[in-house]
């Protein structure tokens, strides 16, 4: 490719595409999309997406930063990988969607009350406390995420299942008090903190 070609490509590559390429996991693949639509048509939850993946890629390339990062579309991804398997250009679409969600979360642009984002946050905080997921607390936190009243209602709705799980020793009420964990929790927490710092340092500024 000639120097002129390269220069013009840079000139026409808008800032948001550059930002996605720099800061979003697998973001450098976005430019490879040829807009065939197989990903959107193959997504089992496709009709729930305000902007299907193919449209998200086009919006990124059109520089629609706010619309993309505040969208709840990428939070609809359930990681079934149907799109990756079928993409004629083998874009890692699932990973890009998770990358966009993570980036949007990092910038504080997630739509308020987005259930997948809420779940992810509850899960993360739960796991970081002991280094292992406390399923009892995770379940309860989900029941009560919308307040005390709905929490009680949800808990009662599921009481038969809960009782069965306890009988089968799938869930222990003792987990409510502390719960099991790994040997060196503070070691894990330090490690994650360091990783987050390194990741932060690698982020490029685009505001």
């Amino acid at each position, binding site marked *: 490719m000639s120097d002129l070609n390269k220069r013009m490509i840079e000139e026409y590559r808008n800032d948001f595409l550059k930002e996605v390429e720099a800061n979003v996991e697998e973001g450098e693949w976005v430019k490879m999309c*040829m*807009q*065939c*639509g*197989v990903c*959107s*048509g*193959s997504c089992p939850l*496709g*009709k729930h997406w305000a*902007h*299907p993946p*193919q*449209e998200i890629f086009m919006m990124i390339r059109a520089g629609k930063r706010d619309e993309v990062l505040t969208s709840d579309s990428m939070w609809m991804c359930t990681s079934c990988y149907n799109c990756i*398997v*079928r993409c*004629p*250009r*083998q874009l890692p679409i699932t990973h890009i969607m998770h990358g966009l969600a993570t980036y949007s979360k990092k910038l504080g642009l997630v739509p308020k009350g987005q259930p997948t984002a809420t779940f992810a946050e509850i899960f993360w905080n739960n796991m970081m406390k002991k280094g292992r997921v406390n399923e009892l607390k995770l379940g309860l936190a989900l029941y009560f995420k919308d307040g005390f009243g709905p929490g009680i209602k949800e808990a009662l709705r599921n009481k038969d299942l809960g009782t069965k799980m306890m009988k089968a020793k799938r869930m222990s009420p003792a987990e409510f008090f502390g719960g099991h964990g790994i040997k060196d929790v503070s070691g894990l927490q330090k490690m994650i903190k360091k990783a987050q710092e390194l990741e932060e340092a690698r982020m490029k500024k685009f505001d």
Partner: protein
Amino acid sequence: MTEVVATNQTILVVGGGISGMTAALEAAETGAQVVLVEKRPYLGGRTSQLYKYFPKLCHPTCGLEINQRRAKTNPNLTIITNAEVTGLEGEAGNYTATVKLNPTYVNDNCTACGDCAKAVETEFEDEYNYGLSKRKGAYLPHVMAHPMKYVLDPRIIGTDDAQKAKDACKYDAIDLEQEEQEINFPVGAVVWATGWKPYDAAKIQPYGYDRFANVITSVEFERMADPKGPTGGKIVRPSDGKEAKNVAFIQCAGSRDRNHLWHCSRICCMASLKQTHYVVDAYGDDAKVSIYYIDIRAIDRFEDFYANVKAMDNVSFIKSKVASITRNKENDNPVLNGVDTEGYHRYANEHDLVVLAIGMEPSVDADSLPVQVQLNREGFIEPSDENGGVFPAGVATDALDVNRAVQNATGAALKAIQVVNRVARAEG
């Protein structure tokens, strides 16, 4: 049995399709000695299986007839059908070719009267019609077959049918004692024109070619449109034989897809635009054609053809690669599911018949090539000095339409002629 008179000034052409025939005739008509080896029992290859050409919508039988006539009258050309090149040793100007001759159990006495076919009962899938119809165990491959001789399917040899065929023949043309034979002869240069095959549509799992009767490939549709074809030229649904008026074409079926064929097969856009004419010609205002595409590649002078099809009222273009096909269980209609790129609308469209514009892949895969040549990622032969005196032609080099394959083959013939001329000069 078969004797081939050849020297190291002879050009060997491998493959008797449109490219191989062109290369062989062009070379032979300059005075070069040419041996043409074809695997099928007749010349013409996949071009002979087309109903019409784009863009003129004329019939390939016309060009085929001209070429066959050129072949019959040229004393420099030796044609060996039902044979395969299995080895090539040596270097440019000095090769020895090994050719396996498969028996057809029919000798040159055959007058193509057809009495053997009447006598034989066993039927097999007709490969000329891509399995859409049956043919007898003794058969004429197609109405314009060259050589114009019947062929016995090796699967009936040793059965009563073989004897029935022999007994029915008035001309003593059937020789059940024929055996496979291997011959060697010298050649100076080789034109390699082994062509293509349609990509295996069943590998595109979401399209259900192997599950749904009313999902067919473009090569099958081509046979269907041919009045000499399996449906007598009627465009119908394989599931129930009803008229297929609402037809969908899916472009890039296998092509431009890293999970299947990396390359653009280049002919499929024009093929679907051409086949749109077949539907509209058959059903007029009742026809409804939908073309699902990523982008239409109707290059250079074909743009007009595209514009004319686009202007038809009953033809619509949907910019979308179809994600999957399901089946309406009540009427066997294929349902196309996807999201279009112009507005991102989700659709589930029902059609009578779906035609997959299937991609082209090299007919000989890399592992079974008997010659040392440079291949590209897609398995096509790259023109390269390292190929020595082996010159690829036609679709063996790249996905090409007939027009470009013929141009390419003429070029390959010229390169081969240069090699044998060099040998001729050196030997005085």
